[in-house]
């Protein structure tokens, strides 16, 4: 009699609800042409990796996102992280800065320095990067619509210390499209937001050649609840929109293409994530070559940062988050990331303590130095399962491209609320799957323990708000207010026309105009974006 091999579930699916077969075999990838579809690492279409030697050449950049309290508090954390072996800086700004609001505005009450560092003027930026050699470190700044202002501040700090602008390297996120889709730190409506964003691309191209003027981000799209394929599709389609805008400005794809960088999430479904990164490289390479006629391989090469999934972490039994983060980080590394942030175990409760950030950084170091996974490039290539997943996710993403193209592009799709609605549908579906236990979060719906002892979390000193307000007031009292007024008036005139806004922004920054003053000046011309509130 034949023995019955029963399965636990009627159907097996990924985190994104994609059906998975029991076994994959050569039939699953019969159509795959390894030469054409995979190529060698570092060669078109880059499926196997951005560079030929990958981590045999150098490890990914270990870049922990950090920012809290005043600039002085965060400066201390930056020095700590660099001393612990971190190789790049990544700045988290508090919500008022992200939204273009000064700390002394009533809208900032309760938020100053809480979720990131408070930056109002050039003075704060001088303190933030004090004692750091800006020619030797690459700095990432998670900032979108106010990106030109924060970069201008960074450039002024560097100039004052006689660092050469041409040698500065780093990234500003400056991805306004994903703001409308997912991150929601929008300020202006899409058209002027895209103008400001493209102005910065243009400016960096000639003035700060080693700077990445955008990090085209899927991270927030995924955190908002999208599937892996949606994250991939909307991110890369945003990329296409930026390229379109740059081309319309007369910029050359082969010249600015190499400056584009990407930012993806590392969620918990191990193989789905690896497939996503591999598909991202292949889709983008083909898009740049076939859709935009790029001939420079550098313009086709996807370089990306990865952050492990904040939304996967649990407030319940928070120590388990170290394990989640390890698995997610491993998928980012096996997927070939260029830099990585690993979340700390306490980030579902508050900003991380120094002790928990150290564990997160050590997680990366253990993967890099102990696990052995860095010894060879793209070890999953040729796996029936991983290659099939890579193909499938690519196909799903290309179908989204087609839909968005048919709508008239991403700006139009956003105006129609299309990606926003797709994401909230996926988020709601996942919530229901959790509630019916179709998907399990360990320690939340299952394997629960009662009466957990609380863990120590980082508390922001409530005095920070008052200190920051006072400091910004002093800056305003000491600066040349006539010069500020003149610089803001010039900025407004330029906003009313069509010239590049960045030189005027730099002038205003140099005079210690506040972030809020500059944002509001442009708002008089550009107007404000209102949340359509789709749900």
């Amino acid at each position, binding site marked *: 009699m034949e023995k019955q091999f029963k399965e636990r579930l009627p159907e097996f699916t990924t985190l994104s609800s994609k059906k998975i077969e029991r076994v994959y075999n050569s039939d699953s990838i019969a159509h795959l042409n390894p030469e054409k579809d995979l190529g060698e690492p570092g060669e078109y279409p880059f499926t196997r990796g951005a560079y030929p030697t990958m981590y045999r050449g150098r490890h990914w950049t270990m870049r922990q996102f950090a920012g809290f309290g005043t600039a002085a508090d965060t400066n201390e954390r930056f020095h700590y992280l660099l001393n612990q072996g971190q190789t790049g800086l990544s700045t988290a700004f508090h919500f008022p800065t992200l939204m273009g609001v000064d700390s002394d505005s009533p809208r900032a*009450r309760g938020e100053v320095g809480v979720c990131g560092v408070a930056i109002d003027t050039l003075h704060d930026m001088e303190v933030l990067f004090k004692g750091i050699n800006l020619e030797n470190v690459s700095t990432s700044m998670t900032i979108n619509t106010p990106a030109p202002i924060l970069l201008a501040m960074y450039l002024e700090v560097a100039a004052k210390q006689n660092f050469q602008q041409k040698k500065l390297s780093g990234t500003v996120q400056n991805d306004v499209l994903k703001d409308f889709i997912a991150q929601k730190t929008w300020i202006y409506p899409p058209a002027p937001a895209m103008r400001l964003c493209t102005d910065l691309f243009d400016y960096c191209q000639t003035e700060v050649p080693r700077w990445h003027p955008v990090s085209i981000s899927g991270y927030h799209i995924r955190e908002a609840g999208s599937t892996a394929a949606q994250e991939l599709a909307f991110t890369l389609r945003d990329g296409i929109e930026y390229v379109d805008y740059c081309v319309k400005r007369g910029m050359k794809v082969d010249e600015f293409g190499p400056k584009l960088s990407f930012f993806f999430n590392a969620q918990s479904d191990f193989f789905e994530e690896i497939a996503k990164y591999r598909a991202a490289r292949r889709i983008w390479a083909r898009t740049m070559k076939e859709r935009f006629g790029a001939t420079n391989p550098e313009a086709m090469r996807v370089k990306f940062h990865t952050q492990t999934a904040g939304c996967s972490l649990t407030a319940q039994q928070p120590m388990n988050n170290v394990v989640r983060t390890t698995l997610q980080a491993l998928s980012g590394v096996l997927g070939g990331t260029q830099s990585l942030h690993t979340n700390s175990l306490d980030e579902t409760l508050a900003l991380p303590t120094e002790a928990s950030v150290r564990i997160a950084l050590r997680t990366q170091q253990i993967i890099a130095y102990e696990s052995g996974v860095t010894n060879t490039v793209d070890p999953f290539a040729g796996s029936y399962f991983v290659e099939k997943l890579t193909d499938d996710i690519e196909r799903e993403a290309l179908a989204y491209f087609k839909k968005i193209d048919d709508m008239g592009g991403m700006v139009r799709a956003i105006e129609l609320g299309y990606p926003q609605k797709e994401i909230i549908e996926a988020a709601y579906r996942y919530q229901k799957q959790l509630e019916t236990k179709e998907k399990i979060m360990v320690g939340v719906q299952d394997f629960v323990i009662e009466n957990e002892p609380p863990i120590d979390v980082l508390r922001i000193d409530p005095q920070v708000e008052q200190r920051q307000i006072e400091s910004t007031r002093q800056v305003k009292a000491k600066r040349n207010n006539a010069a500020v007024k003149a610089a803001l008036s010039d900025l407004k005139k330029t906003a009313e026309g069509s010239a590049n806004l960045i030189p005027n922004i730099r002038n205003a920054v140099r005079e210690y105009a506040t972030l809020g003053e500059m944002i509001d000046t442009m708002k008089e011309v550009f107007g404000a974006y209102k949340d359509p509130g789709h749900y």
Partner: protein
Amino acid sequence: MERKLRILVAKPGLDGHDRGAKIIARALRDAGFEVIYTGLHQTPEMIADAALQEDVDLVSLSILSGAHNHLMPEVIRLLKEKGMGDVSIIGGGIIPQEDIVTLKQQGVKEIFTPGTDTRDVVKWIETNIQPRSL
């Protein structure tokens, strides 16, 4: 027949994390409540005004920016000022346990933290909130 409960789901402050608010808005709507969602980046004044205009029975505040200790009591104060002291307030988001204790003392009826089953929220509302007498 008793009329449906009217619930304002609101996002005070500057943070853009609206996944939870939208899921809650939808779950409450699916459970048969009348739901009004404010959208993001609302000031406490805007929320109190909306509560008044929409004549709601319950205001549900979602905050993931850490500014809850300022924003929640401020909404309560403004509602009282507008003669809507009988409107109940609940909250959700990343809120440490010790803050929950203080916020409840200040008049927040209940706080739901990440990992909450939306059916538990519905059940809590059905048990604890009645339509305000008009």
